[in-house]
């Protein structure tokens, strides 16, 4: 059995200092940013309401198996960029700001998502298991306040030994085939200088 806990509740129950010590048990050597986010950003971001992190734990021994972070995301589409054929569809999903000439579409952002590799191998949660917890939490939020889309970025990582390998493609395929996310473009982030595949899912 998995238990999903909101980090804001954990801050209230443990205090920031003790909670930070508990989060120190999390390790993700495959992607240091995932580990760094949980240890450095998850608490302050939640307190500032920039994103809220959810810990997924084992109900028996309380070990942290993984986590994910959710936020709000506004996507803007220039009205002029939408072809006549697509315009009617765009109106179904976004609110048109006549003054700005843009459709504004609100989405849930799946900002971070990772499993804890410090847990022994047989006990680790798999990606689909973790994704199912994301669906559960977003389903509850959607039930309370509405909303129709989940957005996520997949980093375009490369294999340093073999640049022709594209490990991210497997992830894109997995999110598409198993979770229903559809890639629609790529972007370059001015914040971290990395490239990402942009994916969207209607819920």
């Amino acid at each position, binding site marked *: *059995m*998995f*238990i*999903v*806990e909101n980090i804001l*509740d954990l801050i209230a*129950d*443990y205090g920031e200092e*003790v909670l930070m*010590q*508990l989060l120190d048990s999390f390790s993700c050597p495959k992607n240091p*940013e995932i580990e760094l986010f949980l240890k450095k950003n998850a608490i302050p*971001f939640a307190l500032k309401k*920039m994103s809220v992190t959810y810990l*997924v734990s084992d*109900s028996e*021994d*309380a070990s942290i198996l993984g986590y994910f*972070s959710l936020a709000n*995301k*506004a996507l*803007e*589409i*220039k009205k*002029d*960029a*939408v*072809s006549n*054929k*697509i315009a009617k*569809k*765009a109106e179904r*999903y976004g609110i048109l700001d006549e003054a700005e000439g843009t459709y504004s579409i609100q989405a849930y*952002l799946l*900002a971070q998502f990772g499993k804890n590799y410090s847990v022994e191998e047989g006990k680790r949660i798999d990606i*689909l*298991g973790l*994704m*199912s*917890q994301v*669906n*559960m*939490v977003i389903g509850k939020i959607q039930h309370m306040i509405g909303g129709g889309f989940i*957005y*996520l970025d997949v*980093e375009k990582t490369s294999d340093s030994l073999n640049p022709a390998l594209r490990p991210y493609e497997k992830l894109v395929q997995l999110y598409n085939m198993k979770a*229903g*996310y*559809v890639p*629609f*473009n790529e*972007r370059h982030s*001015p*914040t*971290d200088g*990395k490239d*990402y595949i942009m*994916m*969207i899912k*209607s819920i």
Partner: protein
Amino acid sequence: MATSSIYDTVKIKDSKVADAFINAIEESKRVESMIPASAFNARMATREDSVRLREIRLNNRKVVN
């Protein structure tokens, strides 16, 4: 996923991308998600869960210290 996703704004100005975005929304409606939460035996923490997990974690800390 990335921390930068929280900061960066997404503005679609290119017509090909705009059409691809709307088509992606339409397509995702047709893709059946194969991972219902119910299949993984999970739940949001109840107050009782939180109290029990906290006790286990704090006891584990004492043992380590």
